[in-house]
């Protein structure tokens, strides 16, 4: 610290750089990518607090409801954000969700595999597909937009064709009975802290069903995954060498390569990350619904990218945060559920989503200029 203050002093003495000034705490906050999303989510909660505060939206059941929706989106948004920071896109997230769903359902229902092996099989396929996306982008130098757009069609088509070929239908039901006693499935299908909710129910603090059990039975698995992934991704980005490599790969590919960052490996691993996150999403939804649907996850890739952008990720890469993407997902999840509690027609949700994204992009652009402006 003494070095710093001395040099400021010496510069002032020599009159060389009088333009230097102390940066305000506000400016420090402005330099954080998630600022916009933080402000946005506060506004959203204030809005619904006023408009829908007494409607049950913020009861235990209502809260878990919109948290569940936010968390599901958040799981893929965080992976999409990390990939965007690394300078690439993945448009195949939604199709990957559908594909992972049938990778779980068909072996379990039609081939008699234990559920846990089909879950592992789905994750193995995700790693393979993510690896393929990554290696295609890295080796050919083609924009990831094109490569993963192709994958969007290939996976969705394959999902539909394979499912119809094997089952003759587009849905694979019947998974719910397999969840019980499965060594892995509980990871994606168990509500946690049930004792807490039972206790709250017995104390008459939360709403009860007519049979006396609480309406909200526990924290859904999506929320636990969402929190864990947010923490994990933030730790990676801010605290590890690999995190620095992600920023470097997205910020300046050539520069990063010149100083020894394995840019190709970093990008491939991030593509695997989005495919694996899609599969986590698929596991939770398929086990919750008890069935796989070939159309599951449609357009989710765009929602994930939208949440990442609202969370402060730049489309050009090299800048963004996992917490921002998480907040972006919470904004979307809260509004999409909250709108039911207001008088507003739910058809307006997409309008809001688009407008929010547009505002975020303009805001982010301004922030980037601020961050990189030369003295």
């Amino acid at each position, binding site marked *: 610290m003494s*070095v*710093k203050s001395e*040099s*400021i002093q*010496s*510069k002032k003495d020599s009159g060389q*750089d009088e333009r*230097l000034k*102390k*940066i305000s705490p506000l400016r420090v906050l402005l*330099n954080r990518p998630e600022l916009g999303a933080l402000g946005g989510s506060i506004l959203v909660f204030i809005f619904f607090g006023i408009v829908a505060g007494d409607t049950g939206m913020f009861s235990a059941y209502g809260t878990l409801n919109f948290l569940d929706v936010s968390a599901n989106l958040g799981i893929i948004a965080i992976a999409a954000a990390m990939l965007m920071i690394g300078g690439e896109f993945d448009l195949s997230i939604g199709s990957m969700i559908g594909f992972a769903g049938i990778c779980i359902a068909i072996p379990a229902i039609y081939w008699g595999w234990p559920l846990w092996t089909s879950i592992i099989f789905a994750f193995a396929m995700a790693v393979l597909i993510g690896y393929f996306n990554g290696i295609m982008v890295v080796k050919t130098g083609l924009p990831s937009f094109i490569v993963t757009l192709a994958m969007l069609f290939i996976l969705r088509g394959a999902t539909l064709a394979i499912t119809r070929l094997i089952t003759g239908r587009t849905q694979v039901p019947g998974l719910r009975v397999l969840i019980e006693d499965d060594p892995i499935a509980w990871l994606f299908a168990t509500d946690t802290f049930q004792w807490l909710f039972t206790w709250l129910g017995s104390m008459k603090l939360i709403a009860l069903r007519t049979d006396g059990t609480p309406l909200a039975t526990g924290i859904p698995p999506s929320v636990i995954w969402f929190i864990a992934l947010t923490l994990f991704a933030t730790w990676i980005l801010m*605290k*590890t*060498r690999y*995190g*620095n*490599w992600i*920023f*470097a790969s997205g*910020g*300046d590919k*050539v*520069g*990063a390569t*010149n*100083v*020894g*960052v394995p840019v190709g490996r970093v990008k491939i691993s991030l593509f695997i990350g989005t495919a694996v996150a899609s599969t986590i999403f698929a596991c939770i939804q398929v086990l919750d619904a008890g069935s796989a649907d070939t159309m599951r996850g449609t357009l989710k890739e765009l929602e994930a990218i939208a949440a990442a952008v609202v969370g402060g990720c*730049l489309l050009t890469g*090299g*800048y963004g945060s996992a917490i921002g993407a998480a907040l972006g997902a919470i904004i979307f999840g809260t509004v999409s559920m909250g709108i039911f509690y207001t008088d507003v027609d739910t058809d307006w949700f997409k309008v809001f989503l688009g407008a929010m994204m547009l505002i975020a992009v303009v805001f982010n652009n301004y922030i*980037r200029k601020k*961050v*990189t*402006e*030369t*003295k």
Partner: protein
Amino acid sequence: MSEYLVQFNNISKFFGKVIALKDVTMKLKKGEIMCLLGDNGAGKSTLIKTLAGVHKPDEGEIIFEDQKIVFDSPRDALDIGIGTVYQDLALVSLMSVTRNFFMGREPQKGLPFFKTFDIEKANTIAAERMGQIGIDVRDPSQAVGTMSGGERQCLAISRAIYFGAKVLVLDEPTSALGVHQASMVLKYIVKAASQGLAVILITHNVHHAYPVGNSFTVLNRGKSMGTFQKKDISREKLLSMMAGGEELDKLEVELKEMDRIENN
């Protein structure tokens, strides 16, 4: 031990039929600044890449601390202590000073599998190193994009030195800079040399090279026109040797001719 830290003897490099470099010889002592001068297309870029281990020379040898060296990759050149700062500087403007300084070589701490980037240590070192050059990084977590061109150049050089460069190869460090910024960078280069580094300064600007150089190697169309000590050569002579001189003379004649025609 010979008096030279590094010697490049009779380096040649061919690309198919094109002779990019032919019999270029350069020898550097510790603390010496050699300026490599040449016009565009003289072969400077090829020579830098050969020094940096990107290209393998087709003929000739590189001798570093009395040992013959063959580079298989840029990493090898870095490992023995030849640090190259390219024109693009390999800096990411959206990333902080610290994160740039340690990009690709982040200090780590902690248990295996849970190793973290030791950001406090990195911040301290980065601030200290930048302070030594007289650059006040108000906050090492500020983005590099907020720094001036000269400061960025100094950051890139400082990084190369910190990571063990004994020979610094600088590619056009002043070309994009104004007078004030350029002199700041040149000052830093002289300071680095005075601490025992050998510096190869590649430039086409004689006015930047002449004040700081100890010796000058002029490259023209892939061949060395010789290495000259400062006392043996004038600024004007250097300028004309870079082929720039002749061209400019010719240009002057042509302009006069045009003038004459217009006036008639």
